[in-house]
């Protein structure tokens, strides 16, 4: 059921379609009858089939991910635990130079896994600030929201590296999947020149079919929905618009790293 009365443009438009389909006077068709139930079932079954994947099988997926990532110029870094990930990311931050200025700053999601990296402490000794895209309280005034949004925008513009988590990573296509949640600003994986994502081994799924099976049929994901913005990222930004020559870094990040925590 819809919450709003139908606008006149919608009524007129859909009437035209009904007439074109030759069912202007037919009783309304139920949406459920349009859904291909057999197709849906194959996804539901696929999800059940992968419920008990062994550690070895999961490591196999990691290998597939590394293979798929290579031609995309996407770097996959398996690390045994969160400390190793932190150290490695801190090293990366030190070794890379900013694209747009000289000031080094990192922007990161306010997300449990990202916070566990404790990058603030690690990078403090090198005078590299880490700014988190904090979650606003629900009671925030419009003015406060505006100010907060401006700050987040500025931090993302100023940062040369953005650190995020992800919901899933698809091995076959090397695709990071991220829903939008409070504290997890979209710009962090978009505006800085380098995007670093941290995931756990268990978040790797084999292929797109498994991904869609999770999104549609996994209990928590089904309940949450896709959120108002779900993004798939398969490698760094690229273009081949000039004489079909592949160039990385058209608009989005020029480099993407995925740290996979295997323990």
């Amino acid at each position: 059921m819809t919450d709003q009365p139908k606008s006149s443009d919608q009524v007129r438009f859909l009437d035209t379609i009904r007439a074109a389909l030759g069912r202007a006077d037919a009783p309304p068709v139920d949406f459920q009858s349009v859904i291909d139930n057999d197709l849906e079932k194959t996804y539901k079954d696929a999800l059940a089939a992968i419920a008990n994947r062994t550690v070895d099988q999961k490591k196999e997926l990691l290998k597939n991910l590394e293979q798929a990532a290579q031609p995309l110029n996407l770097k996959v870094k398996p690390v045994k635990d969160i400390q190793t990930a932190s150290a490695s990311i801190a090293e990366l931050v030190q070794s890379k130079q900013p694209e747009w200025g000289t000031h080094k700053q990192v922007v990161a999601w306010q997300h449990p896994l990202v916070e566990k990296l404790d990058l603030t402490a690690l990078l403090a000794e090198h005078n590299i600030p880490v700014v988190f895209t904090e979650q606003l309280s629900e009671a925030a005034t419009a003015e406060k929201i505006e100010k907060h949004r401006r700050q987040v925008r500025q931090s993302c513009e100023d940062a040369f590296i953005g650190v995020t988590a992800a919901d899933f990573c698809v091995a076959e296509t090397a695709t990071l999947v991220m829903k939008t949640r409070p504290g997890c600003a979209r710009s962090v994986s978009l505006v800085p020149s380098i995007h670093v994502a941290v995931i756990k081994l268990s978040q790797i799924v084999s292929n797109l079919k498994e991904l869609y099976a999770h999104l549609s049929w996994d209990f928590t994901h089904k309940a949450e929905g896709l959120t108002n913005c779900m993004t798939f990222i398969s490698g760094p930004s690229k273009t081949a618009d000039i004489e079909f020559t592949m160039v990385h870094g058209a608009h989005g990040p020029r480099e993407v790293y995925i740290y996979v925590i295997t323990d």
Partner: protein
Amino acid sequence: MVLINTEKYIAEAKEAMKDSNLQKALSSFQHRIGPATAATYQKLPEGPELRLKAHDMRMRAIENLDVLLEVLADNIHRRGGRVFFAATAKEAVDYCLQVAHQHRVKKIVKGKSMVTEEIGFNEALIAAGIEVTETDLGEYIIQLAREHPSHIIAPAIHKTRKDIGRLFADKLGIPYTDDPPTLTQAARKALRAKFMAADMGVSGCNLACAETGHITTVSNEGNIRMSTTLPPIHVAFMGMERVVASLEEHDILFRLLARGAAAQNMAGYVSYVGGPATSDQSDGPQEFHLIIIDNGRSRILADVEFREMLCCIRCAACLNVCPVYGKIGGHAYGFAYSGPVGAVVTPLLVGINRAKDLCQGETLCGACQDACPVNIDIPRMLLALRAKLADGDKDWNVVRNSLAEKVAFQFWAWVISKRARYDRFLQLGYLAQKWMPGADGMISRLPLALHGWTRSRDIKSVAKASFKKRWQNRQS
């Protein structure tokens, strides 16, 4: 406002064939991507037959468009997004202008969208004093050069790196270079400033999902994510046919789309957008408008002969294999849609008579259907359009193309319907050809209206006795 140049097809095609840079670019492009796409279909776990399944899915969606669009709109409303149903190009543009005026929008950044080309969006907004910047690198090049895209996915393939180097030196004030990475970096820098300053971001929609209430945008550059994340307002334009019922269908269709469009396993970025940012989110547009466009599509939907064309997801795979597109390029087609898809869609949208050369120019070789990720029978529809041109059609307001041609074919049909009559006709031809110029058993110029056929090649002369006659003589 909308630029339609379909009448210039033949003249433009001739021009294109004289352009050696374009010929080189088209040939190299088709050689690279055409076979690569075919190979990726072969490598699908389900095999190339998955395209047939995808075709069924798309047909099912098209035949339930009313239901799907209503559910899609309801779901987007629920998240605080607005949906406008535009019957015409003008309604769509006017709605967007109204939103722009309401918010005093001065600068728009735009992701690539064919439907906005179709409705003349850029021209209308620029006329209203609003700056519109195309952000896909290819589209940006085309916009700087004040041209129109010549390919759906690779809009600037007709330009050489030297052309682009000179263009950027002139328009962006950078030192001349023909190095693609340096040129790309220059555009990256210039457009980054545009993204940050824009008051509105505009995108198309590749394929919406009714069940979840999302549109999707697909790019490799990340420009559409930039356009739809940074500005405070996101306006998305969507042809009414670009929707399916359930999320599961996206798995199959996106795998095929990436293969058809760029022989990729997956596009660089795919985003599902289902409404504005909520107040507890730190970024993303605070307003989201979806404009669903008819603009002649319901007429295509009403005709079962052409309904199948609405399955198209505009991946441009057919352009990449078409022998005609491969010689004449995209501009000759005179409208937003070029290649085989353009040869069917354009006549249906702008008028079959007006765009008659488009459907008559194709070869019916069938390569487009084999390359199509949703297996659309384009050759069948090209023939159907030609039949309408031959006979005229009231429903589509088609005036018969040529009465003389019709009479000639009627006469021919009459001649070949009786063997004796046909034999007499051949004898007549045998006698008449003595007055026609030619040599070595070939005729180099046919008389009257038929001479068009011999303008670029000779025709074999009629033999003294027909094959049938000679066969009979041999047997006896």
